[in-house]
């Protein structure tokens, strides 16, 4: 027979256009505006940090899959690329290169491939990498380069503080918000991203733009990001309305730190978030609440990374309790 044989397979025989690769690259595209802003603000450092993170993530995935696990190499599926990119977004621009490499190793080697690779990891790899670095190297990880508009140098980073850092330290040592407000960047600056912080987390507008793109492309649904931000706003709002001198207002909380990056890009990671909409809302409320608690009372000024990791751990539990309603069953009443 010249022509290839007839194919037999079970139904369905057609398939949608969507592939996991396309989804991954959609997320990458959505991160581009924020990356451009950080290029503008941090200059060359942003480029170096990001490319090192991406390259080392891809490289580790390749090496570990090929030589340690001896399985098929899947670096082209875009997931390692995305992990690298997100890791870079979550560290200060200009972090020592070897630390970025360590972070990538932790993210890919420990958090992802140890569990069997894409889809099986319980915790968000990029965040595990980031938290690992944060715990190990708190100095470098909180050495925020000053936002210098149109920076093109690779000069030593000038250390600045993040909005949340200023508030945390200030309040702990008896300051009030009124005193501190002078030190804080304006909300417009925060919106645009002209402030200190991790490489990709500063520009609220650019991140929102990306988030919007993802929603339009139906890569993510509104449930997680909106609920996270809403929970944060409500909780900080309550504290603020009780004692505005010792609690920052909700707007500052939403625009500062990794709130938006976390809500739109980290918490929505499909692998490590719940399946059902109901589960997503619970998950997101948890993230919002834990973030606020850590920000207000914890030792770390920013808690969204931890909050997401903690809630990641709860995802299997959420998934087994919040099932989709089965067709034809009376409204729920099903546990486990």
């Amino acid at each position, binding site marked *: 027979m010249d022509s290839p044989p007839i194919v037999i397979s079970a139904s369905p025989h057609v398939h949608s256009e969507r592939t996991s690769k396309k989804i991954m690259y959609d997320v990458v595209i959505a991160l581009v505006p924020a990356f451009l802003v950080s290029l503008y603000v941090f200059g060359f450092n942003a480029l170096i940090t990001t490319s090192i993170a991406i390259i080392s993530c891809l490289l580790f995935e390749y090496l570990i899959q090929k030589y340690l696990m001896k399985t098929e190499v899947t670096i082209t599926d875009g997931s390692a690329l995305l992990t690298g990119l997100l890791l870079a977004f979550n560290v200060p621009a200009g972090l020592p290169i070897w630390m970025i490499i360590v972070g990538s190793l932790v993210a890919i080697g420990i958090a992802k491939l140890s569990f069997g690779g894409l889809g099986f990891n319980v915790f968000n790899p990029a965040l595990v990498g980031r938290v690992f670095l944060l715990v190990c*190297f*708190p*100095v470098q990880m*909180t050495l925020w380069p000053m936002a210098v508009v149109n920076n093109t140098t690779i000069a030593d980073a000038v250390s600045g503080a993040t909005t949340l850092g200023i508030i945390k*330290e200030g309040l*702990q*040592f008896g300051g009030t918000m009124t005193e501190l407000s002078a030190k804080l960047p304006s909300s417009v600056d925060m919106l645009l991203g002209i402030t200190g912080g991790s490489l990709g987390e500063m520009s609220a507008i650019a991140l929102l733009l990306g988030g919007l793109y993802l929603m339009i492309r139906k890569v993510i649904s509104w449930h997680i990001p909106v609920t996270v931000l809403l929970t944060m706003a409500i909780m900080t709002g309550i504290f603020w309305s009780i004692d505005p001198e010792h609690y920052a207002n909700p707007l500052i909380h939403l625009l500062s730190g990794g709130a938006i990056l976390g809500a739109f890009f980290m918490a929505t990671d499909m692998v490590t978030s719940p399946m059902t909409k109901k589960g997503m809302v619970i998950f997101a409320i948890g993230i919002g609440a834990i973030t606020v608690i850590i920000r207000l009372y914890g*030792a770390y000024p920013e808690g969204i990374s931890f909050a997401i990791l903690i809630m990641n751990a709860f995802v299997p539990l959420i998934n087994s309790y919040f099932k989709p309603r089965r067709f034809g069953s009376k409204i729920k009443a099903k546990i486990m």
Partner: protein
Amino acid sequence: MSKKESTFLNMALSLIVITLVAGFSLGFVNNLTLAPKAEAKLAKKVNALKAVLPEFDNDLVSEVVRIKTTVAKDSVEVYPAFKSGKFVGAAVIGASEKGFSGLVKIMVGFKPDGSIQNIVVLEQKETPGLGTKMKEEKFLGQFRDKNPSDYNLKVSKDGGEVDALTGATISSRAFTEAAQSAYDEYMKIKDSLTKSNN
């Protein structure tokens, strides 16, 4: 091999014998170690005192002065030291709750003029490798022979003169706060201390 049957009598008997032997031997060992244990406990405190104070010859531990304050939860302990009846300084315990993981407790030895003789960290739960470096000479050394009246006990970031530990500003702040509180207490009761023994 033969096992004893599980009758009530057997069970009770064997348990009683075992507890008997255990009780006896434990009591015995306790008697043996009672003295060394107390010594070891004392030695720890004395060692700390010795480290922070100039030479002294009075029994510091029994002459502790406890002062109720608002700064710390419990009373503050002050150990005045004398050498041949002459006041040579005092060790004051200072604490701060604002460490990275809560309580930081230090013992500060002051000379009669109020300058710091030495500091020893008694308790802390700071991050290993960062905040815990407060125990190291590099950090402690900068306080030696400084008089808080003209040496601003604050980290440089807050306008003081103390070089904070790298990566552990919060721990350093707690430390300086504890030192400051010790100093404040010391200044408050210094006069009564010197007088009391005269």
